[in-house]
């Protein structure tokens, strides 16, 4: 196989994988929430209701596509893809496994190992905001614009603590490439702990996780679309598959954030204490590493759902307060201490 063919296969694989996660997540969200709330959830379509997302998709596609009369039409149409596309693109730099040897050719399980992969993820996260803001503004509705404005403020202010938390990681590993970061996390730390980011940077992890929830617009930070106040916020006026794209983009976003968390803080595809490559064949090792990565990612995806059905929602000013008054100072202190330690130890 030629390189570009391999790349194409990888792109398609990652795309399908991202889609699949988003699709399954809509099902998990409903069923898990139902189980937490003493309900059953959708269980009619297919076994365990697994075909429910498909039914939803069909429903969304067959609905009438309405563009409000006074909306900015071009921007209105542009909003949803602008939101969903960056979420998909961020997957490109996610190392979803170690490597696989096929026909004597070593294939790394990552679409492209960009050496600034980390900045690329942050940049795409920032672009995703435009989808919300443009969608909210173009709808020409007061609820939508409020949602859009909240999204802007929230995402911009939470990018700072997120960046600070990530900077500490960069300091620690001395690289921007996600793949190298994962490789650096193998082995043990202090003799007994796995050499994972979370043990070296517990505070950084918490800051990152909180910021990730805010970036993904999940409860307790789902202010841009909080249902009881702003109807559904920035996508109030959307219907049909445009709405579907927004909802879908959100779940893809979750997948990305969970993957990044795993890469940075949980050692990516590696298992603690065990080196799988020693006793597994080259092909099975590739698959196993992907499975390990996926399980870790799945845990964080479940955590997103789990937290959502446990806690209430912040208020707008409290959210900003948490971001600017708590997380950013903490992040700065954390960065400073880490920088000091790194400077002293190296």
């Amino acid at each position: 196989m030629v390189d570009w063919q391999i790349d194409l296969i990888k792109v398609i694989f990652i795309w399908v994988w991202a889609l699949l996660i988003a699709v399954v997540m809509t099902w998990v969200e409903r069923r898990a929430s139902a189980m937490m709330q003493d309900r059953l959830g959708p269980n009619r379509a297919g076994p365990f209701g697994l075909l429910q997302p498909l039914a939803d998709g069909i429903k969304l596609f067959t609905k009438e596509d309405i563009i409000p009369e006074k909306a900015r039409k071009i921007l209105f149409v542009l909003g949803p893809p602008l939101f969903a596309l960056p979420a998909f693109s961020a997957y490109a730099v996610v190392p979803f496994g170690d490597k696989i040897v096929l026909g004597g050719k070593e294939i790394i399980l990552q679409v492209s190992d960009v050496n600034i992969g980390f900045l690329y993820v942050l940049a795409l996260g920032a672009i995703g905001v435009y989808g919300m803001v443009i969608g909210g503004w173009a709808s020409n509705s007061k609820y939508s614009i409020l949602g859009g404005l909240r999204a802007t403020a929230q995402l911009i202010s939470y990018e700072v603590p997120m960046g600070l938390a990530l900077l500490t990681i960069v300091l620690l590993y001395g690289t921007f490439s996600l793949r190298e970061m994962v490789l650096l996390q193998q082995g043990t730390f202090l003799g007994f702990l796995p050499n994972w980011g979370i043990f070296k940077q517990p505070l950084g992890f918490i800051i990152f996780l909180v910021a990730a929830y805010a970036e993904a617009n999940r409860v307790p930070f789902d202010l841009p679309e909080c249902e009881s106040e702003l109807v559904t916020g920035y996508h109030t006026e959307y219907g049909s598959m445009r709405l579907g794209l927004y909802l879908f983009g959100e779940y893809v976003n979750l997948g990305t954030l969970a993957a990044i968390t795993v890469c940075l803080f949980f050692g990516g595809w590696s298992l603690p204490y065990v080196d799988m490559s020693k006793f597994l064949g080259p092909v099975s090792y590739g698959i196993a590493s992907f499975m390990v990565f996926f399980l870790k990612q799945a845990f964080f995806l479940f955590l997103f759902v789990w937290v959502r059905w446990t806690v209430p929602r912040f208020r707008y000013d409290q959210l900003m307060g948490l971001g600017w008054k708590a997380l950013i100072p903490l992040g700065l202190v954390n960065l400073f201490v880490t920088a000091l330690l790194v400077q002293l130890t190296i």
Partner: protein
Amino acid sequence: MAREIETVCITTGPAEVGDYVTLNIGPIHPAMHGTLRVITKTDGETIISAEPEIGYLHRGVEKLGENLTYKQFLPLTDRLNYCSAICNNVAYELAVEKALGIEVPEKAQLIRTIMMELARIADHEVLVGILGVDLGALTPFFYLIIQREEIYEIFEWHHGARLTNSMGTIGGVEADLPDRFHQKWPKMRDTIRKANDETDRLLTHNRIWMDRTIGVNAFCADDALNWGFTGPMLRACGVKRDLRKDEPYLMYDQFDFEVPTGKHGDVFDRYMIRMLEMEESIKIIDQAYAMYQKLPEDAPLMKKVPKIIKPPEGQIYHAIESPNGELGFFIKSDGTDKPYRIKIRPPCYMVYQAFGELVQGEMISDLIACLSSINVIAGELDR
């Protein structure tokens, strides 16, 4: 009545009315419980002024009452506060019985008490659940609503309907406590407590919840009295007033229960008072049930009343403590079989008229929290 705690009140600074956006919330809005509408002027997220508009569920119950007989009007009272229909039924029955000058037998009073307190628990459970939902915590709602379902089952086995109960009749109740109640109550008492406890663990000490509720929509006791607040809303402001204690009806003067009061009248106090009141209601039911069990099995359930009820000419007002506050019925009789004028004093009506003042200067999110914590029931509000 006793003022428990004196709180310090300050007048917050004058609102700067510059540029504002008029934001119309409702009547079709997820948080506007049915058919409410608030027209707000907002500066960013801050509310400069809010004006509630009502009447979207106006059915002319009072006009209908003038054209129906006393017994026919009873089912219409279900449709006032549909979360606790039994309280409305009993309030109306007591008012008509006062006009007739009769008192129902002891057993009927106890059954009414038990059913009313169950309805009160159901109402509070809905309120706390909805408050959680509106603040983004969906899970407690389901834990609580399951308990409400159990209570509804008892209602169903007692008088045949779950929501629109039409319990009893003028002169007593038609049915004895059902077997379901005897079987279920000892277990249900614990499950209700467990659900409340779980809600408490999920919400009360959670900082997000505390930030969202403590100090939000705080209201002074004097203003509350001036605006005509009653019930939990008034008690949250620190005024110990409960018609069950102050103007006892049925047999409430024989029960031992506490009246919880708050301090600041904020959303948190309203929430806590409702949580505590559920516990008190359980206590009352236990006591009433103990008294009930001492009565002979064939004790009378009904007072002999004529088939066509014709109270003598005159006018009476009778109020009870419904879950929302003072629910009163004014009945003017002209000696015929239909009430000449019937006026309902809904508790949330008086609270909702102060809504503009309650939310002024707060944020849009607080408006939603405030609305849920008042427990505005459109059926009762518009009548």
